């Protein structure tokens, strides 16, 4: 079998690689607001939509926000006074902390993809002007109708607190390659 290190698929074979430089990822239309009121105050927005999408983002906040077992660690990433207790406990009964929701991106206003969910947004301590998704993707600082990187619109993952690791991998250590 061939041996590798890592692979760069800068091909060949008529494969059309996206012709954009790496720093200019494709953008899609979006709408971003700090608060529900800010959405209401935007004359270009439908108020019912503001409310439905806000609730959708708010409902996801506790599940998708980054989680910390120490409030200090959370504040180091998001700033003093910018964290709250998550509605979860560690398996040993300890508290779990997460950043405050600082805004939301409306799913109904996203262009380029089907049936997108709204999602909560956060601001990190080292770059407090920009919104970030729960998966730490930069959304930029603009509010209202704007454009965001396509990668920032994907569904945020659920954040949990792991109680154990290492339950996979033993057969690989015993047998070696999985290749067939």
């Amino acid at each position, binding site marked *: *079998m*061939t*041996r*590798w*290190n*890592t*692979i*760069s*698929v800068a*091909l*060949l*074979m008529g*494969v059309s*690689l*996206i012709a954009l430089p790496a720093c200019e990822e494709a953008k899609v239309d979006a709408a971003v607001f700090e608060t529900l009121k800010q959405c209401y105050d935007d004359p270009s927005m439908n108020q019912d939509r503001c409310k439905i999408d806000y609730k959708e983002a708010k409902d996801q906040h506790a599940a998708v926000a980054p*989680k910390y077992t120490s409030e200090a660690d959370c504040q180091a990433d998001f700033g003093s006074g910018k964290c709250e207790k998550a509605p979860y406990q560690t*398996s040993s009964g300890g508290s779990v902390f997460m950043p405050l929701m600082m805004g939301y991106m409306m799913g109904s206003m996203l262009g380029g993809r089907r049936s997108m969910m709204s999602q909560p947004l956060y601001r990190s301590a080292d770059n407090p002007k920009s919104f970030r998704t729960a*998966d730490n993707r930069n959304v930029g600082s603009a509010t209202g109708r704007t454009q965001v990187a*396509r*990668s920032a619109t*994907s*569904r*945020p*993952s*659920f*954040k*949990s*607190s*792991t*109680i*154990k*690791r*290492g*339950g*996979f*991998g*033993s*057969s*690989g*250590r*015993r*047998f*070696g*390659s*999985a*290749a*067939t």
Partner: protein
Amino acid sequence: MQRIPVTERPNLAQAAAGHELEFTPGQGVTGWDETAYYQFTMSQIEEDLEGPSEELEGLCFEVVARAVDDEEVLRRLGIPEHFWDYVADSWRNGEKNLYGRMDLSYDGDGPAKLLEYNADTPTALYESAVFQWEWLEQAMALGLIPRGCNQFNDVHESIVASFPLLGIDGLSHFACNQDIEDDKGTLDYLEECAREAGMDTRFLAMEEIGIDDRGRFTDSDDQVITTLIKLYPWEWIMDEEFGRNVPASGVRFIEPPWKAILSNKGLLPLLWEMFEGHPNLLPAFFDGDPASDMLAGSYVRKPLLSRQGANIEIVQGGKTLFHSDGPYGAEAHIVQGFHPLPEIGGNYPLVGCWLVASKAVGLCIREDRTLVTGKDCRFIPHAILD
């Protein structure tokens, strides 16, 4: 199908470096040999390999459909009872498959015979999809092979086109045993394809996977894993500590759980039982089945779950012709009629046909110097010329 000696590209060292393949002066690229290529006619490709592979895929699906309704079959395949409903549901829910490679005994004449189906964790994907194609283009440009050659190779485009059809939303995790370069390289390539298809991806080692208090799997940043594209066999997953948590984990796996039925060599006797006499099948039986007497002492005995040619025994006329060692074989075995690979100057080519989303899309020929293709085999490129 001819084996044609050819001059190596003078720029082979640079070509290998461009793909970060291991190159040793005097020995060439590890696992790759371009001092020869196999030449096929278009009708050999279309009629003997492409068409039959897709037909075999259809037969395999009939085996899966039967197996998921028959506990005795699942038991014979050694699938733990804890996973029977899980495997069956994945099939009934139509969970999609991405890729696999059928290994065929074929000499250019007469029907190709299915030796096994690497339906779960096939490798040699990058050589097949990328390095082999580059060889064709450069060998033609350098005049090493005739102009106007073609290649059965839509592997890359097919994988990129298939990813969006898997219905994956959100982040996909890619996992394997990261200490095995061959496995990691194959998975890295799949991840590149997924990114080219616009997916969000992240790699982690199998041993880094965690579990939370609700039985969900997590990555090293405590993100809950929702889709896991694994290069790690189903039978290992089922056997390991976290395996019992898999059915309730909510994770979508690629390849799907029902591939555990096809990547098992028990597939071969099941195919023969249902489709006895099919031109692309060899007679096969579970070891100990009295019906295997018809093999008349000439057969290949394989464990249900061995890899890379390990623990294979070839018996001809009642005598052991070949035997390979290895770590497998604690489980049951099958016996399959002995249909030797063609031999050309001491080389034994094994023809692999890639299936992507169940469509035959490319060829992978590997040679070894023994009748059983093992981990020291070399990839030989191919060309089509009429």
